């Protein structure tokens, strides 16, 4: 692990992901489940939960990023634009700090909505290496 290391992966907000998140979170706010309601608020269709991106980040850090076994210590996410069903979101991560003394790594993440051509979120993740 070294500062400057980069990795990427693309995720899809599939119906399976969306429905599983609905069950897990219990958040059935009309904005997230009712296309007509979302359109009345100015969106083209229902808006996906921003926390779905957090799920992708969790998978990316825990299962994809080449850091081995890690423990998520902090996750600071700024949502930049809404995502919708079937959107593809690419995570681009860069290691910005490796603290060897305490076995921790900080990563800067940009989540780009490839379907909409815009940034969906930015995040700062701190993980402990095991």
């Amino acid at each position, binding site marked *: 692990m070294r500062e400057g290391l980069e990795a990427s992966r693309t995720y899809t907000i599939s119906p399976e992901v969306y429905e599983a998140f609905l069950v897990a979170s219990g958040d059935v706010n009309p904005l997230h489940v009712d296309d007509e309601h979302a359109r009345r608020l100015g969106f083209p269709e229902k808006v996906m939960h921003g926390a779905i991106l957090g799920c992708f980040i969790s998978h990316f850090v825990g299962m994809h990023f080449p850091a081995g076994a890690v423990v998520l*210590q*902090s996750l600071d996410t700024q949502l930049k634009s809404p995502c919708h069903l079937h959107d593809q979101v690419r995570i681009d991560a860069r290691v910005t*700090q490796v*603290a*060897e*003394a*305490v*076995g*921790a790594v*900080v990563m800067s993440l940009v989540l780009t909505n490839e379907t909409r051509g815009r940034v969906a979120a930015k995040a700062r993740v*701190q993980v*402990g290496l095991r």
Partner: protein
Amino acid sequence: MSTLDDAAIRARLTDIFRDTFDDDSIEIHEAMTAADVDEWDSLNHINLILAVERGFGVRFKTSEIGNLANVGEFLALLKGKLAAAG
């Protein structure tokens, strides 16, 4: 970073302590230890080291911080690194 005098280093380190432990009343001193700060647990210890590294542009090794007895020794280590950075 190397141009910081002792007072400036102490002031910046105090700010980092206050931010890390969410306590604006913290005044660091040489004899201070983790036992003196309510929120100084293992996770916040990691957060503190990361914040000091970022705040001063230095990097620590496990062997350097593993046996520190108090904030005074941490300050001495930090000042030594800043001086070495020239």
